[in-house]
């Protein structure tokens, strides 16, 4: 534990394009917050504190010891704050699936900016907009000019915008993992090499899952979760339902599977893997009862929305990355 004379750690938490769930995971430390504030001063956290952007901009470079940046980069404000916080922080952590891999907002990269705006402001059946009004970055009203951030062409993850020191994944990260990482930092423990994914186990979800896996898998085709009668005990892949557990690193406590829902990969890839889709395909191939290539193709074809399932949380981080006009 930290030396009592040691200066307190200066810490910041910020959100880009996010849902708030990551900030809730920080709040969920409950009583441990008392331990945390013994060792750290929170200097910027819009959800809880009064520090303003201007205050952060006025801080000395590298004056924040640790910043947890959650959320993806969707607009000009997100990007601006990513640059500001990179400059002000000694350690910048991409916190949660969106900052790590693009997350659910990253699914927007299946569409172009124009398709997104058109859906929301023109095509939406409840929207009446005969003049095709669109929100404008700058708009003159009688009293002056109003501004809102620029909506970008696509969603980026944090390290596509700025240099990132560590990644702490999950949607949201398990609070226990955050506490472990925090206590390691304040205790002065040797930090892992820059670029490490922290707060995860060394192995795949599959190896931490309590569902029973068959030794001879023989899946003929894949089913939607509602097409089977889940027995609550057997591995989803054995039951013919796509589960991302074999491609996903452990650390979450296999929460969704315990709720009888297959894993969708929010914790990101197992060590050594960059593209989750490629990894899950190899798992699927070994589970199939396939005589030849045709059987494999047939089985793969039975997967609905394979891209949207395999890259549910990682499209901006994948080789596909985004739709090009």
């Amino acid at each position, binding site marked *: 534990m930290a030396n009592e004379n040691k200066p307190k750690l200066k810490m910041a938490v910020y959100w880009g394009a996010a849902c708030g769930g990551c900030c809730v995971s920080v709040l969920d430390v409950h009583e441990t917050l008392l331990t945390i504030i013994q060792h750290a001063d929170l200097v910027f956290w819009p959800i809880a504190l009064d520090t303003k952007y201007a205050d952060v901009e006025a801080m000395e470079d590298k004056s924040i010891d640790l910043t947890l940046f959650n959320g993806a980069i969707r607009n000009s404000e997100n990007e601006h704050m990513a640059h500001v916080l990179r400059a002000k922080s000694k350690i910048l952590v991409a916190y949660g699936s969106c900052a790590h891999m693009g997350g659910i907002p990253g699914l927007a990269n299946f569409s172009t900016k124009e398709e997104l705006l058109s859906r929301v402001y023109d095509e939406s059946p409840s929207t009446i907009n005969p003049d095709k009004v669109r929100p404008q970055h700058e708009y003159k009203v009688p009293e002056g000019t109003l501004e809102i951030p620029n909506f970008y062409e696509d969603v980026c993850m944090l390290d596509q915008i700025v240099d990132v020191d560590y990644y702490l994944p999950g949607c949201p990260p398990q609070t226990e993992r955050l506490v472990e990482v925090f206590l390691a930092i304040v205790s002065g423990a040797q930090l892992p090499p820059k670029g490490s994914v922290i707060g995860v186990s060394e192995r795949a979800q599959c190896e931490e899952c309590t569902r029973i896996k068959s030794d001879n898998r023989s899946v003929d085709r894949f089913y939607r979760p509602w097409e089977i009668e889940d027995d609550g005990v057997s591995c989803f892949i054995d039951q013919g339902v796509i589960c991302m557990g074999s491609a996903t690193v452990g650390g979450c406590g296999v*929460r969704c599977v315990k*709720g009888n829902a297959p894993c969708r990969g929010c914790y990101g890839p197992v060590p050594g893997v960059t593209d989750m889709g490629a990894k899950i395909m190899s798992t699927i191939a070994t589970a199939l009862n396939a005589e030849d290539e045709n059987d494999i193709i047939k089985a793969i074809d039975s997967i609905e929305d394979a891209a949207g399932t395999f890259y549910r949380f990682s499209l901006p981080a994948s080789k596909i990355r985004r739709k090009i006009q």
Partner: protein
Amino acid sequence: MTRYTIDPVTRLEGHGKIEIFTNDDGEVENVYFQVPELRGFEKFCEGRAVEEVPQIVTKICGVCPGCHHMAAGKAVDAVFGVEPTKTAKMIRELFYMAHFVHSHIAHFYALGAPDFVVGPTAPKAERNVLGVIAKVGVEIGTEVLKQRRIAQEIQALIGGHQTHVVMNVPGGVRKGIKEEERLDIVEKAKGFVEFAKFSMKIFNDVVLANKDYVDIIVNGPYNLNIHSMGLVDANNKVNFYDGRVRVVDTFGKELLTYMPNEYLDNIAERVEPWSYLKFPYLKKVGWKGFVEGQDSGVYHATPLSRLNASDGMATPVAQEEYERMYATLGGKPVNATLAMHWARLIELIYAAEHCLELALDKEITGTDLRNKMYQTPKEGVGIVEAQRGTLTHHYQTDERGLVTKANLIVGTTNNHAPISMSIKKAAQGVIKKGVKVDDGILNMVEMAFRAYDPCFSCATHSLPGKMPMIVNIRKPDSEIIQTLRRD
């Protein structure tokens, strides 16, 4: 012309902004409330297998994910043409009551109460949840945290994931409730009922017993004469999970009522070039601008509007409190924005009482968890009441059940126009020639929108209830002449 820029209003997702323009006499000319964010869920739900969507849309909001999961789950039921089994519906509703208990507790104690329990013009350093605890005692503060934690535990037990719930499948739920779990929930729900009644008592003792506060609620610049929306059951009682949407007019008479699949005949949305968030209004009345009154299409969807739109509460203690509120405030409808806090506590009592009712019914431990009589998937609308307003999810699919179109009207979106109007009215009421715009004045403006418990401030629900602000007072050429800050 002087321009007051409140930027950022923290605890919005990313960034929120209020622009106040005053004329040379120091009177408020106009106010713009801007929401600067868009993620486009409507578009990227397209192409997804529709049964995956309830797990995707939870990521709209990490504080009220349960609401999106429920609206989506109901829309998916409709896509497959199935009604959930009785047990499944009870389990969903039980989860949902715990979700309301957790959220309403947090809003009242962390956001609403500081203005009343501590005081609207109390020193700013005390006007937060810690100030509330200092006033009511640490013991009560601990109880607040405990009850909220218990509500979260029930959600995690039933929902499968403590934040982004995964419980709904077409026609039902993935997991049942065991008898020992039911008995445990019964005890916890009894605690909720007592705590909800106790919270109402605090409101009585601290707020209603104080003439000044009652005067602010009734006569302050916090009145908005607009229509009221809420989901009601067959007896026109407030219902959070199911029923039909009812809108009563500014006189308290039923203006319209619709089932989820009729929402497009009744609600329309307007786009303004200065905000990414749209402005819904009553389609049959039409958009008449940011104006109040019987002829306006503007409505609100809040705890107060739900009570206005109903004929009462479906549980006994909540019903008593409902009657008392309207008797005290002079009958229906109530237009006092700050009475939303009162209405929220009445809803808290209902959620607690209904949570207990559901847990006491042994049928909730049934094993018939899913209605599998699926039809060819096509189209469905699901509507629930989110804590912050009526929530509509609408999906269309191809015959394989892949989403072709999605449309969402989210709780707080309903209130975009009302919040803008309430802020303007409050600003007009308190910012006048010769009045020094200080922290207390800012808080009076802020109280207007805090009552709505807006979801773009979604994660604020467990945090101090003061809204940190910087206000730059600028000359028309944008030169800053004074900066006020409230920490």
